[in-house]
């Protein structure tokens, strides 16, 4: 029974992991940028909602606000800076986003201090039981929102004119341009959506865990691993990838102890690179 409980915890947390990876995978797939500041974007979303919460706003109300603010933030960064180097060597964009990550983390530490912050509305600590299994309400909400956002992203990409243009740009830049797509705008919108998803992830992360300026240090590589596991072009598969990691961490925590959970993602990453190097390189 304990194992069932652990699996439930893992699946619920894994949905949120999937949401974290969603934005990174989207940006990676369309712009060929591995955004090393993605975890810092999640952190910013978390802080924004935390401060709105201390001002009396329920985090579920703030969630769309965080998404809108982060969208604008991402859009402006892409439009003003990243578009200048978007199709240059991978190293340039890695350096740029690494620098951005350092700056954002430093500013957060300066402005918000290194204290642990938690967004805890009444429902965050609530539970209910199904048989012998306890379901934490905060995690359940985070899971439901993560899946809903993945579904929305899927519909946006598959069913709308904008989504078609985003996929077309990712698949064949020259042809997209030939038929009137403006890549600079598509890139900025895509990067904005990636940041907005990070903002949503940060909100939910703040409900189920604690926010510090440094959470990006583990969340960026975790998102990276899940993006590789899930592949870059299907949001629903990425959420499934998040669930795989969530369950693997929960099981590891049970049998080896909680200190080993971070080893899981990186162990899996190494394993994938060793077993299917061609596949993962093709993605990259």
């Amino acid at each position, binding site marked *: 029974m304990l194992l069932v409980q652990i699996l439930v915890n893992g699946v619920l947390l894994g949905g949120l992991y999937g949401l974290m990876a969603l934005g990174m995978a989207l940006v990676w797939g369309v712009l060929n940028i591995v955004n090393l500041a993605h975890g810092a974007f999640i952190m910013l979303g978390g802080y924004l909602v935390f401060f709105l919460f201390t001002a009396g706003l329920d985090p579920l109300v703030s969630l769309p606000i965080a998404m809108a603010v982060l969208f604008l933030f991402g859009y402006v960064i892409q439009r003003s800076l990243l578009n200048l180097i978007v199709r240059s060597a991978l190293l340039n964009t890695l350096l740029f986003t690494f620098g951005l990550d350092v700056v954002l983390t430093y500013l957060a530490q300066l402005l918000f201090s290194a204290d642990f912050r938690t967004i805890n509305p009444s429902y965050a600590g609530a539970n209910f039981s199904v048989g012998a299994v306890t379901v934490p309400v905060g995690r359940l909400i985070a899971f439901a929102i993560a899946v809903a956002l993945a579904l929305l992203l899927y519909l946006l990409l598959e069913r709308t004119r904008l989504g*078609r*243009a985003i996929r077309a740009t990712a*698949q064949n830049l020259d*042809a*997209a341009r*030939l*038929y*009137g797509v403006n890549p600079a705008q598509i890139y900025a919108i895509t990067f904005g959506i990636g940041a907005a998803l990070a903002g949503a992830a940060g909100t939910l992360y703040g409900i189920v865990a604690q926010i510090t300026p440094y959470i990006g240090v583990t969340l960026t590589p975790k998102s990276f691993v899940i993006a590789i596991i899930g592949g870059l072009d299907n949001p629903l598969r990425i959420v499934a990838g998040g669930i795989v990691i969530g369950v693997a961490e929960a099981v590891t925590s049970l049998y080896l102890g909680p200190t080993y959970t971070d080893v899981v993602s990186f162990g899996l990453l190494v394993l994938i690179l060793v077993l299917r190097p061609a596949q993962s390189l093709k993605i990259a």
Partner: protein
Amino acid sequence: MSDALLDIRGLTAGYGDVPVLTDIALTVGAGEIVALVGSNGAGKTTLLRAVSRIIKASGSLRFLGEDVLPLTPEALFARGLVQVPEGRQLFGRMTVAENLMMGAYRRRDRAGIDASLAQTFDLFPVLAERRAQTAGSLSGGEQQMCAIGRALMAAPKLLMIDEMSLGLAPIVVDRLLDVLVAIRGQGVPILMVEQDVFAALAVADRGYVLEHGRIVKAATAETLKSDPALQKAYLGSDS
């Protein structure tokens, strides 16, 4: 001066400082199919790039009576100059229907888009059958149909097709040539760039022969087809 749709005079263009094309003169009039033929590396694709304003050029370039030399590729596309690029350049993991809709990306007239789609499916019934299939899974001939269909979805006023016959069986090429005639019949003139000289001249009204970046011959298709020098240079292509 002339009422040609596309009117090129004294055009020089190239990559960097080295000109690939020198002193090009070429026109396409309403209702015409014009063939631009020449061997590998003659500069055919370069001419299309210059006309689409992707690469630098100097001289005179007029489209629909307007001097379009200073315009961007986007602006020219918006005026109805639409290209089917060399190598088809489809969105391989998107469906046929989605590829076609990308042709209409800049259009907002729902009714007009529906009409273009109906017209495209009418010309290429196989595309209607395979609308839900990914473009990458089509045969070479079907891919070329999809690429031409995508261009038609942009409501072109002039269609430029680069190397349509490349890698296709003669029977497929013949079928596509028939469709080009049908497209012209619907009021869209065509500038086709071809290595397969006699395929192109089979449907063209006029032709230009490009060699080493210069137009060395310009005549009606009839004249060119019976040109002994041309027959000798491109022997074995067709009858």
